């Protein structure tokens, strides 16, 4: 008799657990969060850390969007035209003779484009706009640009050649879209008359700040 009791209790626990787990699983985020993607062989081993890194670490603290200038204007962030690299480097004699820069000038003299390898390559059916994310977090929420880029690209300023450091999987994206982000923050560009209305999840204003989730409609990110 006791056996039945024990077993039954055990079963209850088990099923209950399964139930909760299953019902909650939409919250699951991928395990690969913050695990570095493979190291990609680039034609020129571009040192992000020298350019964008902090001064105390010997970096130049160049704004991400100085080179990836399209990010705030277009869906794609863009790789800077060779022109841009040369623009600075022809006047920087100190490193003129280093192998990487030599290579750079070879391309320039040949007027040949550098065949960079894509590091963050989303599937073809995904529609991701850098522009909106920059606007939303850098301009509206007034977050520093390196942080904003970092949301998806990780801490690039400490890498040489960039490596993928976020999962970039659907669940991963959703895990952020699901959060309630404040719509405008102190010092950010205020937005007015813009309806944030995704599905029926109206922006909920907790106290002062108006908060809204990211888009949840399939067609928003899938083309």
């Amino acid at each position, binding site marked *: 008799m006791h056996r*039945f009791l024990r077993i039954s209790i055990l079963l209850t626990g088990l099923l209950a657990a399964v139930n909760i787990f299953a019902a909650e699983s*939409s919250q699951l985020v991928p395990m690969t969060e913050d695990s570095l993607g493979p190291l990609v062989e680039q034609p020129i081993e571009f040192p992000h850390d020298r350019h964008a890194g902090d001064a105390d670490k010997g970096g130049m603290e160049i704004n991400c969007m100085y080179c990836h200038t399209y990010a705030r204007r277009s869906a794609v962030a863009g790789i800077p035209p060779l022109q841009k690299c040369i623009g600075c480097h022809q006047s920087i004699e100190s490193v003129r003779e280093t192998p990487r820069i030599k290579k750079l000038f070879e391309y320039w003299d040949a007027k040949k484009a550098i065949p960079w390898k894509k590091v963050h390559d989303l599937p073809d059916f995904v529609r991701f706009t850098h522009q909106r994310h920059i606007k939303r977090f850098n301009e509206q929420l007034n977050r520093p640009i390196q942080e904003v880029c970092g949301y998806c690209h990780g801490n690039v300023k400490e890498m040489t050649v960039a490596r993928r450091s976020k999962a970039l999987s659907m669940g991963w994206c959703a895990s952020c879209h699901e959060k309630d982000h404040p719509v405008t923050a102190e010092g950010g560009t205020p937005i007015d008359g813009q309806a944030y209305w995704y*599905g029926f999840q109206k922006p909920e204003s907790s106290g002062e700040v108006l908060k809204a989730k990211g888009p949840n409609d*399939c067609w928003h990110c899938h083309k």
Partner: protein
Amino acid sequence: MSKRHLLALFSNFDEAELVVQELRTTKIDGFNVNDDMVVKSAIEHPEVEEFLGEKPVYVQWFTLFGATMGGLLGFFLISGAQANFYAQLKGGKPIVPLPPNFVLTYEMFILGGVFITVLGFLICAGLPARRSPLYSANVSEDQIGILVKSDEIATDKLKEIFSKHQALEIQEEAGK
């Protein structure tokens, strides 16, 4: 004090029944008829139960429990899943439409019921089981086996009773 097992085989139920009656009536010390006797047969035989007397069966409780849990699990899993972040309207129907969910709940109800019933069966029937110390393949053919467990002192008495009723065969073994 060590126990001994005896298995007696009989050709038909009437014999077996008499034996059981006798074991019931005669007082043998070192042998408890309710705990120490098992009847083995090739078919499911109502009379066996009659002469062994009613014993409780708990399987249906498992069934009840399984079915309810299954149903609940079904409904909440489905409704919960429908109410996820991507919740989208479909065909003008509510996002958590009850009729379809009930259909699925119904299926889950049965699924849970069946699974847990079988589980219950295994538990209640003590399956899977190790082979008992004494077993004869004839039991699965056409003979009735009566397996008793007793102190040594009781064995002779038991044997006597068995043989009195033309037991076809009596196996004996020293159980540890």
